[in-house]
């Protein structure tokens, strides 16, 4: 009985995924394809090829940062929808530091670029959080507005101010290339001795272990420190927290800055880890994906890692399906959305079920042992 439940709990995410796939099958059937074939392609393509595995990890990296950024704000009852804009600004700041400074050693230049990215994200978040805490303006509205501004500002900066002069006259609109010292080292050299080679292996960079490390540190920070305790109090009853002398506004400000700082790092996987410049067509939308990642992870920093992996897998699998099963791209996007939605719903239902079952069991244990009368007296 107990073992069965434990098994169910461990299997919950997997069951949720199966459920999601079942729902999506209806969609696949509707366009006249065989779901089993489509899924087979998806799994074979993404899980049996080394290049796919590394591509998944590469796509997972920014999602870890984005998921963590969103989760940190949610933890403090704030909705940072502005991760998107914050990472645009962060990416630009990192690129600026990367290409405008020359001759610095990597141990100085790279940390400087990372700090610039985090700082850029934080600065971009200052207006919304100040408006929230001083004037009560809802951060959802203000961060969305800041996203628009960030997007337009970036186009202007790349196109009109910092465009690489050597590219003028070509269709390539991008900043100059960053100094090699500011680039995030690839994990290729570390993996080569294991017999792993290829361009997808090379793409993987040290931001992945950095993201995982940040997740672990945050989990510890939130559950063990005084500040983490204050965050819990502020989130679960701000009035009682205030009465206990906890400065609500300062706690929320701190968490929002933490969120925005991490958000600033989201774009670096592509900018400093891969391309080496900021192109006008750099990957967008990661901040919004971060919201889904955080939801799936239930704002748990450690849960963000598997949640981000799942999104990375879906993305890679979609590419395979598009290519080998010749399913149109739009359908793939719809499929992804359906799977995610179904997973979120199924996950919620299953956790609830496990929780009530656990409670029942706890009650059974009580009946068996005669500790009936509460404690205390």
């Amino acid at each position, binding site marked *: 009985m107990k073992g069965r439940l434990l098994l169910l709990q461990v299997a919950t995410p997997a069951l949720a995924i199966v459920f999601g796939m079942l729902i999506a099958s209806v969609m696949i059937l509707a366009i006249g394809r065989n779901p089993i074939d489509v899924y087979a392609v998806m799994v074979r393509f993404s899980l049996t090829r080394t290049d796919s595995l590394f591509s998944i990890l590469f796509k997972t990296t920014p999602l870890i940062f984005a998921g963590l950024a969103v989760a940190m704000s949610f933890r403090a009852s704030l909705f940072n929808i502005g991760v998107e804009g914050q990472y645009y600004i962060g990416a630009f700041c990192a690129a600026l530091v990367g290409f405008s400074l020359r001759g610095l050693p990597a141990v100085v230049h790279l940390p400087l670029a990372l700090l610039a990215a985090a700082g850029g994200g934080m600065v971009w978040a200052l207006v919304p959080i100040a408006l929230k805490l001083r004037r009560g303006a809802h951060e959802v509205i203000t961060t969305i507005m800041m996203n628009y501004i960030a997007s337009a500002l970036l186009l202007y900066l790349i196109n009109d101010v910092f465009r690489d002069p050597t590219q003028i006259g070509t269709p390539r609109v991008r900043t100059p290339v960053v100094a090699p010292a500011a680039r995030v080292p690839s994990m290729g050299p570390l993996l080569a001795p294991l017999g792993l080679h290829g361009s997808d292996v090379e793409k993987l960079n040290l931001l992945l272990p950095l993201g995982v490390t940040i997740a672990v540190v945050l989990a510890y920070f939130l559950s*063990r*420190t*005084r*500040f983490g*305790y*204050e965050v*819990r*109090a502020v989130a*679960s*009853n701000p*009035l*009682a*927290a*205030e*009465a*206990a*002398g*906890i*400065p609500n506004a300062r706690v929320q400000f701190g968490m929002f800055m933490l969120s925005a700082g991490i958000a600033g790092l989201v774009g670096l996987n592509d900018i400093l880890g891969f391309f080496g410049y900021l192109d006008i067509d750099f990957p967008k939308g990661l901040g919004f994906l971060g919201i889904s990642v955080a939801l799936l992870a239930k704002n748990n920093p450690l849960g963000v890692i598997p949640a981000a992996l799942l999104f990375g897998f879906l993305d890679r699998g979609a590419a395979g399906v598009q290519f080998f099963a010749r399913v149109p791209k739009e359908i793939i996007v719809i499929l992804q959305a359906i799977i995610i939605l179904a997973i979120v719903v199924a996950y919620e239902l299953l956790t609830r079920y496990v929780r009530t079952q656990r*409670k029942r069991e*706890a*009650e059974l244990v*009580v*009946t068996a042992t005669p*500790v*009936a*009368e*509460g*404690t*205390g*007296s």
Partner: protein
Amino acid sequence: MNDLFIELRHITKRFPGVVANDGVDLAVRTGEIHAIVGENGAGKSTLMRILYGLYQPDQGDIAVKGQTAVIDSPRRALELGIGMVHQHFMLIPVFTVAENVILGSEPASGLGRLRMREARQRVADLCRQYGFILDPGAEVGALSVGEQQRVEIIKVLYRGAELLILDEPTAVLVPQEVEELFHNLRRLKEQGKTIIFISHKLDEVLAISDQVTVLRHGRVVGTVPAARTTKAQLAEMMVGRPVLLELEHPSVTPGQVRLEARRLRVPGGGKRLAVREVSLAVRAGEVYGVAGVEGNGQTELVEALVGLRPIAGGQLLVDGRDVTHATARAIRLLGVAHIPEDRHRRGIALPMAVWENLILGHHTRDEFTHGALLDRPGIQGFVRRRVGDYDIRVADTDAPVLALSGGNQQKVVVAREFSFNPQVLVAAQPTRGLDIGATEFVMRQLLAARSSGMAVLLISANLEEVLSLSDRIAVMYGGEMVAEFARAEATPAELGLYMTGTKRKDEARAG
């Protein structure tokens, strides 16, 4: 002919680590007022939630009017004529009385248009039928606590309830409002309604009920007719030993002034002043009682004194230091503790663990921290001692505090605020929801702290409590202190006149 409205047979309900109800048998006759009493955590609320379909019993069954029934939801309970008056009012402040009453079962025309006039009429009829003084068109946010409770009762009657469950309805009322409530309850009973009434105040229980059932540790100790029992007997049945209902009030020579307010002005909601020119000084070794009907500025005064509400004018001093514009944290650090009037609002964070709630506000102390980290072993020791000293009934201190019974939640707040020898204690309704044993314990604690030099500001709607604890008693009415008495001079009747605004300070001076 079966005149039992409800028959509970062998109801058992378990929660992790506790048996909340253990084979409970309860029979409630149609048309009676049946009181249920018992210590904090005895299982009263749990039993009522089972009856109202909020919880399912693990064992046992329920018969309603002689028919076995499965009550799996409040909706089903209402179909069977069982209604519950919520302790924490679920009203929408900007709606009128009538709008609140009909919410969820609005009368509508065939096209779905709300028949507001009909609704208002039906609510007015109900009020007339049962003698409730209530204006169906009044906005609920502007009503007193007692009136809001009446709205809750009308709401349940509107849905056709024959049996009303009232779980500690008087905990939030002042004596006059209790009288009014009892008047209404008797009227309901005359008209054939059945009432289950829970209270920790045995005088009330004896005054209003026909039968009294006593629960202890989830089991029924017995059911006795109210006319043939006494407070002492009930108390003994509840606790399992005789309870001393007397309290000693040793004389203490007061020391220096610890907490002082000078012509304090505090805004309420909007621009209106909730506290107008209030001056008071509480000395070390003294309990200064503030009596008054709730809603006369006490809430705002307390919040201002502990730094939770901006002060518009006047001065606030702690130990002679000006803290008029200090933060709540700064005032706390000067040794001011605060028991808030509403534990769920300001006192505890329901989803957080019992241990987390017990250190709230103390969590920055050296004994609980290791640099930036919380020191779990240090905290565990403290938590274990507090749980033991205050007899907080909890199976596991890692459980969220919402799993505790109402009285045990209050004990968490009280235990926490009494920790680390505060110099000043601002206590609003400190014994609200506590059983007689716990009430007596907290009162003793208060007096012991007073003897060792603590300055206590006691705000209470419970006159008996104010009178038995205070050295000086002030009455607050309409945002002002309208009278101040020395302990020996104060009588309930005299206080009552000031509390209702019948008499004022100036007249008292003249006379």
